[in-house]
């Protein structure tokens, strides 16, 4: 474990980018990526929770008894999720409505609890911050790219502006549930092709 803080940050962007390398937290990935905007919104909300909970877990790691650590982590995460929920309700109301129940469901996103348990409970505050930020940004990038593919082909727009001519007929399969699964499956395949070890 002689990695530098930068290495911990960078690994979340490629080496361990969720959900492609670590197949965790698939529900929000599939559900909110109908548009790029929703994908980025969800990614930023998750990053915030991830960074804050990682910092707090790392700060309290010597105080929390190991028997009740999972329960303690869940409470810490739930607190920050509530913070995000209230903030989004106040400042980005349309996004809050379109993400719906997937904001409170960040609590049960395996990535957040996974990082708290696997990384933050064993490492210092600075390292945990870098890890949380890296994984969070990686997750946001993944959501945005999946959202881009689905939005461009599914509704012919990118961030709300049309990219094809008026004669384009949207490939509506992409924005529906089956398209989400197939699209993510094919993206995983591409990632496997590109990043073989």
């Amino acid at each position, binding site marked *: 474990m002689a990695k530098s803080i930068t290495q911990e940050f960078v690994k979340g962007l490629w080496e361990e980018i969720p959900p492609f390398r670590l197949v965790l937290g698939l529900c929000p990935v599939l559900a909110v990526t109908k548009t790029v905007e929703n994908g980025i919104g969800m990614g930023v909300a998750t990053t915030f929770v991830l960074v804050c909970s990682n910092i707090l877990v790392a700060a309290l790691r010597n105080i929390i008894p190991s028997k009740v650590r999972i329960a303690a982590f869940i409470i810490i995460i739930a607190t920050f999720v509530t913070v995000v929920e209230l903030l989004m309700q106040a400042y980005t109301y349309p996004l809050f409505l379109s993400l719906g129940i997937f904001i409170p469901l960040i609590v*049960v*996103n395996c990535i957040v609890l996974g990082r708290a348990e696997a990384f933050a409970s064993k490492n210092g505050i600075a390292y945990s911050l870098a890890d949380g930020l890296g994984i969070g940004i990686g997750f946001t990038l993944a959501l945005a790219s999946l959202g881009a593919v689905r939005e461009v082909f599914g509704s012919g727009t990118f961030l709300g502006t049309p990219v094809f001519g008026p004669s384009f007929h949207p490939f509506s399969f992409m924005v529906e549930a*089956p398209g989400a699964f197939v699209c993510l*499956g094919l993206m*995983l395949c591409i990632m496997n092709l590109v990043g073989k070890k």
Partner: protein
Amino acid sequence: MGDYIVLAISCILVNNILLAQYLGNCPFLGTSKKMETAVGMAMAVVFVLVLAGVITWITEAFILKPFKMEYLRTVSFILVIAALVQFVEMFLKKSIPALYAGLGIFLPLITTNCAVMGVCLINVNEEYTFMQTIVTSFSYAVGFGLALILFAGVRERILLARVPKPLQDTSIGLVTAGMLSLAFFAFKGMV
């Protein structure tokens, strides 16, 4: 009575929790490689989801609403569900060891299954009555089990097929799930 049947059908088939609402996908891909584990997970979800639906409804109606603390919903629900799963595990270990042996390892996983939390939140958001909550919780859980067992059956056959290397494992699993989801998509507009 008719209303309840319509509600049940809509939850099992039309709004299938896995394939139409995208909830609970981690256990969907994680436990579907073998039929045995899929059946175990499906049973555990049916069992816990009904209990969790009832308990969170009670929490919402008798604690959060009267004291105007709806903003604590996320925190309280996850705590209630975690405590419930822990309690069910201890109870089963002590009194029904046979069932515990069957469900055993799947129970702790359920705490972080977003299908459970998701259904509880849907029930509260839609303002269902107590009876409706029981019906929807049970039907969503049955829908989860149905999709999971169907998917496990397909996945066992895929093991025998020659899949290209980059597509193996999760990747082909997701594409298969997409096809299954397309089948369930046909139920849309039925209710």
